């Protein structure tokens, strides 16, 4: 059945695929995860705030991001970020951002909405008495959050946070719409050049599957370990 296939194209292009493509994909995933969890945690804290001027905008932002297709957001940010950047620093010309920075910012801000919902559940999973105990010692809001609530929230939510990161890892392939050479983009270029679409797309699928599946397996393992500690 595979007689007409040329699997050699994979071996030939592998160094390029991994060195150029996969490096980009992993860097983008790591940066978007870090930034996404950071801003997501801030958004979650805002949403849980009793101040309307904090929780209403946070809720609006999270709901907006979660209701719009990611591809659209990628486009928007790509075209809008240069203008927003110019507006922030007061420049007349749109700021040159570059496809990489643009996609990092996009994924950070988009994933922040999803991480925010996870962290909100995590923060709410910490009993109220823990917060009281922190305040009773004289800790202020930020100290209580940093020392008591967030460490427990992260621990409780770690499996879900990692699962979301696996989804993020797959979603980064959507940057192909900006003609960026991520792992999928690199494979697509080779596929077009050599006319080996099926081989390349099969290979890409297998690689994504192996990475995502083994990460999921790791998360499951971790979940069991956490369950024993608690």
């Amino acid at each position: 059945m595979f007689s007409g296939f040329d699997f050699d194209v994979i071996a030939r292009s592998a160094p390029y695929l991994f060195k150029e493509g996969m490096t980009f994909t992993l860097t983008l995933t790591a940066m978007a995860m870090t930034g996404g969890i950071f801003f997501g945690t801030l958004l979650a804290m805002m949403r849980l705030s009793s101040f309307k001027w904090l929780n209403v905008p946070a809720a609006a932002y999270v709901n907006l991001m979660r209701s719009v297709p990611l591809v659209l957001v990628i486009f928007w940010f790509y075209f809008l970020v240069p203008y927003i950047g110019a507006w922030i620093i007061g420049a007349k010309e749109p700021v040159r951002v570059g496809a990489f920075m643009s996609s990092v910012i996009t994924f950070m801000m988009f994933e922040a909405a999803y991480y925010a919902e996870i962290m909100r559940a995590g923060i709410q999973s910490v009993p109220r008495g823990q917060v009281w105990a922190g305040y009773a010692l004289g800790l202020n809001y930020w100290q209580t959050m940093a020392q008591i609530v967030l460490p427990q929230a992260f621990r409780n939510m770690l499996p879900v946070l990692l699962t979301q990161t696996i989804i993020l890892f797959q979603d980064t392939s959507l940057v192909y719409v900006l003609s960026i050479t991520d792992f999928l983009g690199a494979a697509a270029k080779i596929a077009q050049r050599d006319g080996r679409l099926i081989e390349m797309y099969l290979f890409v699928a297998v690689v994504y599957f192996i990475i995502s599946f083994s990460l999921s397996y790791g998360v499951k393992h971790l979940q069991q370990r956490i369950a024993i500690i608690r």
Partner: protein
Amino acid sequence: MPMIEFKNVSKWYANFQVLTNCTTRVEKGEVIVVCGPSGSGKSTLIKCVNGLEPFQQGEIFVNSQSVGAKETDLNRLRSMIGMVFQSFELFPHMKVADNVNLGQVKVLGRSVEEAMAKSMSLLKRVGLEAHAHKFPGQLSGGQQQRVAIARALAMDPIAMLFDEPTSALDPEMINEVLDVMVELAHEGMTMMVVTHEMGFARKVANRVIFMDRGEIVEDAKKEDFFGKPRSERAVQFLSKILHH
């Protein structure tokens, strides 16, 4: 000058009134036991003392500082009042010693070495120095509550609040916690204790406050409270918890 003074404190949850015109005082070195049926507002009353629960009317003074006043530095005030909770509320992700260190380092600005020395001497005092490097989840309830007391004492508080400190404990562990509290009382610590342990009240309380439906119904010397309670509700309550 009283250490803690309540002046006509009232509190509502939406339209439901949980505290009604509560007025009382705790002098320096006094031990006050607060009792009453569940839902009578006793836990709420002592949580008002360090501002964990806000109240809408009246005033509470701690060391002549008004708890509800805007200009009061509530975090600083709280750091001077120790509090022990019904469900211990140790921080489960920190070792026992770090639980006791946390406030000393983050709030009082002590060095880690200084805090550790203080923590170890307090843990020794409650008989738990051997458990300093364990996590709270590895200790029994009674041990956890003793750590919680050490954690509160580490801040060198001017008064201690206890919110049903033995209610979540198995019967055989109640005494190890009460013993620590009795010792504290004998040392002259100002204490406000919500509890149903009438033996503790008989032993160390100066006064007993009886609450029902958000009101302070009785506020009497312990001899008077146990000897001749004036209100019908207190008589009923006492008969329920003393004879079974």
